[in-house]
């Protein structure tokens, strides 16, 4: 098993609350993603056994939604909202700034595996634009200074 005992325990705990096990697919995928940073075929199979739902149903759901990538990404996933409200306040330029700072292009991961940069659709932080989501956390009302500090702090933790 790639899923840890703790993840399995959490998935079972969630699933037990629903009248039908299939409803636990998204929560299970979320727990698996939290542990691993990706969710692939092997994990679909493991989840299938844990919640007793056919593999194909797990795969079908997992591949529809954007939050369960099949391949691991950098330790810190930089998701820049590039929808209209953020774009009006410079998110295109912010993406370019991060690209230059980290020496990567949108969609890529830095060589040290630390950062992956992607642009995403509206994250519901429109009145505090521009913004970036890094793993679980939102960073809002960004400017050069704030963004530099956030990224430099993450780097210096290593």
């Amino acid at each position, binding site marked *: 098993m790639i899923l840890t005992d703790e993840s399995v325990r959490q998935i079972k705990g969630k699933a037990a609350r629903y009248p039908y096990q299939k409803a636990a697919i998204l929560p299970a995928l979320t727990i698996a993603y939290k542990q691993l940073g990706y969710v692939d075929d092997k994990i679909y199979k493991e989840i299938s056994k844990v919640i007793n739902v056919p593999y194909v149903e797990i795969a079908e759901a997992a591949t529809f939604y954007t939050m369960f990538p099949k391949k691991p990404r950098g330790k810190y996933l930089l998701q820049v909202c590039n929808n209209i409200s953020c774009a009006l306040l410079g998110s295109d*330029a912010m993406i370019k700034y991060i690209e230059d700072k980290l020496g990567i292009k949108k969609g890529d991961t830095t060589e040290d595996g630390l950062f992956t940069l992607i642009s995403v659709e509206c994250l519901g932080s429109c009145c505090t634009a521009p913004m970036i989501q890094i793993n679980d956390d939102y960073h809002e009302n960004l400017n050069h200074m704030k963004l530099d500090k956030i990224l430099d702090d993450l780097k210096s933790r290593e």
Partner: protein
Amino acid sequence: MSFYSPVITNAKEAAADDKLHLFDHVEDPEQFTLERYVQNGGYVAWKKVLGKMKPDEVIEEVKKSGLRGRGGAGFPTGMKWSFVPKNSPKPRYLCCNADESEPGTCKDRVLMERDPHSVIEGMAIAAYAIGCKLMFCYIRGEFHHSIERMEKAMEEAYENGHLGKNIYGSGYDLDMIVHTGGGAYMCGEETGLINSLEGEKGMARIRPPFPAVEGLWGCPTIVNNVETLTAVKHIISRGAEWYRSIGTEKSAGTKLVSLSGHVNRPGNYEIPLGFSLRKFIYDANYGNGILGGKKLKGVIPGGASTPYLTPEMIDVGLDYESLAAVGSMLGSGAVIVFHEDTCVVWTILKLIKFFRHESCGKCTPCREGTGWLELIIQRIEDGKGEASDLEKLDSICGNILGRTICPLGDAAVMPIQSTLKHWREEWQHHIVHKQCVVKSIFAFS
């Protein structure tokens, strides 16, 4: 731990104004705790309902209040509840729609992060009204902090007897599950949400049957927006007549509106319905005017799905009827403002990329059409537009509108159509001169 999001609200004004209520306590950093929530009058309405109201009386009160869905459709809430069959032997379900993802909208997040118990209390009252024993709060997966706050609040509510078995000795049992999504705009549409909750792909279902009759697992199901359910709590606390006295005759109550884009003071504001859009953008207590003193060019009044307004059209009330009368919509309550340095085609390109990405793929007109629209709009933006492109856009839009199961197709084309109408010269300029009238270059400061 105080606020997760630094967003501006008008909580002070709300607390001082007898009519505003949803935001009364959202600047209180402890409001998310059960202790403070109860100090501020929390769970009184829920106790009142279980102590002395019949489910039908709750529905009647909400009907009388004139409350309408705050997620975008504006359907009368009490009437929606009354569609749940009275004699169905099946379980009934309530789903709180917290999949907030309409671009420009970030109001439900404030309620969940800062006043989560008010959402739970509203949900509980709605659940009781329809005879539901298990309710869900479907929160978009990206909202980790909202999820955390709602889960913590739910646990506190269970521990203190506001949820669970035999609540307040009434004999009524109610359970709750916080369910998290996987990142799909479609799940904000009620049938998409229901499919997603069942563990399916978030695709729309054909209606009828409507969810109130056959929804989650084929059982009667009511899906209501976070703000709608929170308003229910206040309606029960203070009465339908008080609620009716706020707003306009057909649009009763208040609305949370997110103001974003080129304004000096973006934020989330609670306003009585019917509030002037011009005042909302220019008044010092709200938008405080256009960024850099620039000239206003356009406004998207209800989120990315709604038709644009020109500066000549902003003397309009923010309510369902007034915005419909000028050809747009109140939507989810998201005013997006852009100034003179913005290319309209560029804004539309941002939106169509979004809709193409979020189209679930079930209906051909939307699946194929949004792709074609993006291709054509992209080439116009890139200076490679062809003379016939505007007619092509007109035609594709016309072939999507009204021809899809859910409103996503309509949502994708209505903003485009509005700009083809109001800014057609700008579109033509783009094609003839192979460039924008004005290039949208917004610096990152």
